[in-house]
């Protein structure tokens, strides 16, 4: 299936052994490079060009000076960067924590080694020891080789922050890799996938470039599907002025499997609870790739769309659908980037997660649930890295772990957790987060999924698990694509609200099914 070796997973323990260090197993040219044309839209420099007849690009003029200037600029604007570059003691606690290292054994995929790619340059140009004793402290000159390593290895980091959990100082490699990508963007090494997608959001409103008419069409199709299945007229409103709730969801929810089943789940919940909601064609995207490239400005520009949509539609609350990094940007950054949201109803947090709506409704018994409808499955739950380590749900720390599990257990009879070293805040990334979810990075995606695959295999073999639920559009897309490499099938990945949708009996639905049964009897 591939011209590289797929990591072996046995399912014996649910946790892969730490590999012996190897060198340059994942050295390469990195993902496809963004053209000047796309960089321009992001306000990044454009004075670089394709080298005739190749897929290579030059760097910008004076790239070295400009890279160092950017590094200097960022370290005075981000305390995280300055502190993290200084204080790592090389204790090695993080070295075996990254799924990409476990899956590839490449030394430069150890979190601290990944940080060091930038730290060595920082030391060389900005610290006394590095200026005068570079060899002693491992400082290096900034050369094109170093830039190539940056580009390659900072795109083998999904910014999942697992390393940060285990570092005694919480050093967060994600912060370093975001800063590195921001520097790269300023010297002509933007990543095509991220910049192209952001261009579409800036221009059309979502990652897919799905215009208003197509979106309206899709939603109408979904209404028909739900009615066909349940007999209930569940609406998927678009641009409905004066609705109470603006739902912001990743655009994959509009068409991809199993995402779309999740979207149907949210719609059914809103319908059943009598909530007045709408989607926006102007802000028809929950994803915000600005975070991945460490660009405050681009992240804010995308976030401001949501504010504008909420104001234009006159809604009272903003609710986010199932997406990991989107929820991180929403929960942790939205208020800062695009607030204050004083024009919304102060009774509700801004923003809310759709699970923060579904769970209280389930608790209050407001949803008519028939758990047996999920009896064909035994579930486990994949904690998405961004949700687990970058956000919260509900009002208690750890709600991001409990609420999704509670919801699953409220709608399914069979639930099992995976190895505890791979769940909650120790969860392993799916392998496709942080702007890695692109076909030109398939090898690292497949290898990076190995720790999760091992944990999954462990529960499928020993505890009869048949399906893994996720609450992130990237996780869902990544898993459906890579799990076949490990002997699973695509349909084993489900949305949490898909499970809710399966078990939720809408008003009027019973009758319809009865009709169907009557018809069966008749024939």
């Amino acid at each position, binding site marked *: 299936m591939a011209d590289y070796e797929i990591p072996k997973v046995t399912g014996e323990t649910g946790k892969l052994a730490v590999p012996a*260090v190897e060198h340059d197993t994942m050295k390469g040219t990195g993902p496809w490079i963004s053209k000047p044309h796309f960089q321009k839209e992001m*306000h990044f420099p454009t004075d670089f060009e394709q080298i005739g007849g190749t897929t290579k690009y030059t760097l910008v003029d004076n790239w070295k000076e400009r890279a160092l200037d950017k590094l200097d600029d960022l*370290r*005075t*604007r*981000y*305390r*995280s960067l*300055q*502190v993290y570059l*200084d*204080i*790592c*003691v*090389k*204790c*090695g*606690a*993080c*070295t*075996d*924590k990254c799924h990409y290292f476990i899956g590839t054994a490449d*030394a430069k995929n*150890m979190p*601290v*080694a990944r940080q060091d790619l930038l730290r060595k340059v920082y030391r060389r140009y900005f610290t006394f*020891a590095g200026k005068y*004793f570079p060899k*002693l*402290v*491992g400082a290096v000159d900034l050369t094109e080789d170093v830039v190539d390593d940056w580009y390659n290895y900072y795109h083998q980091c999904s910014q999942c*922050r697992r390393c940060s*959990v*285990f*570092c*005694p*100082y*919480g*050093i967060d490699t994600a*912060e370093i890799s975001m800063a590195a990508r921001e520097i790269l963007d300023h010297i002509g090494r933007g990543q095509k996938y991220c910049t192209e997608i952001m261009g579409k959001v800036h221009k059309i409103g979502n990652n897919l470039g799905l215009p208003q008419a197509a979106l309206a069409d899709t939603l109408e199709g979904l209404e028909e599907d739900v009615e066909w299945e349940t007999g209930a007229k569940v609406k998927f409103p678009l641009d409905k002025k004066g609705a109470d709730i603006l739902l912001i969801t990743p655009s994959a929810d509009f068409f991809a499997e199993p995402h779309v089943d999740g979207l149907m789940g949210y719609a059914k919940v809103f319908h059943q609870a009598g909530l007045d909601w709408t989607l926006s064609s102007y802000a028809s995207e929950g994803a915000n790739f600005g975070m991945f490239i460490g660009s*405050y*400005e681009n992240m*804010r*520009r995308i976030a*401001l769309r949501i504010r504008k949509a909420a104001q234009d539609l006159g809604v009272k609350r903003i609710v986010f659908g199932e997406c990991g990094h989107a929820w991180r940007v929403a*929960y*942790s*950054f939205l*208020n*800062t980037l695009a*607030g204050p949201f004083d024009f919304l109803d102060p009774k509700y*947090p*801004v923003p809310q997660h759709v699970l923060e709506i579904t769970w209280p409704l389930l608790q209050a018994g407001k949803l008519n649930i028939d758990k047996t409808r999920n009896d064909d499955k035994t579930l486990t739950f994949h904690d998405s890295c961004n949700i687990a380590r*970058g956000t*919260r749900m509900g*009002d208690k*720390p750890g709600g*991001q*772990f409990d609420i999704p599990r509670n919801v699953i257990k409220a709608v399914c009879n069979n639930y099992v957790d995976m190895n505890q070293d791979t769940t909650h*805040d120790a969860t392993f990334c799916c392998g496709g987060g942080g702007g890695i979810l692109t076909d030109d990075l398939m090898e690292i995606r497949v290898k990076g999924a190995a720790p999760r695959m091992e944990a999954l295999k462990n529960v499928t073999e020993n505890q009869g698990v048949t399906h893994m639920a996720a609450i992130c559009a990237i996780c869902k897309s990544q898993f459906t694509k890579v799990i076949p490499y490990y002997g699973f099938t695509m349909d084993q990945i489900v949305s949490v609200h898909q499970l809710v949708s399966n078990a939720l009996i809408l008003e009027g639905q019973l009758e319809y099914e009865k009709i169907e049964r009557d018809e069966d009897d008749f024939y």
Partner: protein
Amino acid sequence: MILGTVFGVLFWVATLVLVLGIANKVRIYWKTPAPLKIPTMPAPVTQRGVVWRMFKEVVFFQSLFRASKPTWLFAFVFHMSLWLVLFRHVRYFQDPVSSIVLFMQPFGKYAGFAMILGLAGLLIRRIVVDRVRYISAPSDFLMLVLLIGIGATGLMTKFVVHTDVLQVKEFFRGLMLFNWQPLPSDPILLIHLASVAFLMLIFPISKLLHAPGIFFSPSRNQVDNPREQRHLAPWAADLEAQGKIYPDDK
């Protein structure tokens, strides 16, 4: 008296570098904005909770404990012994010596051995574990060697080749009160002192910055409250006030 002058000047300079160097770094960390909330979740939702989280990190190395038990053990033994040893050393600078320092003397005496054991464990790990070896620069090994050297010379002075500790005290009290006194010229003691001065000199320009730095780590020192409060960095507020998205907007 030449010896006393050389070491006197050395310690004065080292102390200034240490204090001003750390103060400067702390000033930089302090004034550098943290534009977005990035605590590693789950994080405390109150400031008191953050103090407790930080306390567990600084005193018990909680995250390290989760990460690697051997590293934690060596690191914990080394650091705790270091504090005891340093505490015991207060007697060279204080007159009269306070009762708590006196009380700790017997514990501190043996802490020197534990400190060296811990350091040796860390050094062996650095050599033996391939991952840790890969990430080590020469300075990472030398830092451990330096500390082991300081500990070993200190212990030798204590248990093998005694020195006139009262005179040492006179010397350091003298330094503090601008009243120059002679220093015993035992070579082991001089190595001990020279190494300590060197450690003080490199403190603000090395990874030893982890000691003040940990308190500034945004992933550990932030309250989880971004939905309730905005956290605008001054440079972000500037952009907002000018109605700009990008700094180069007209």
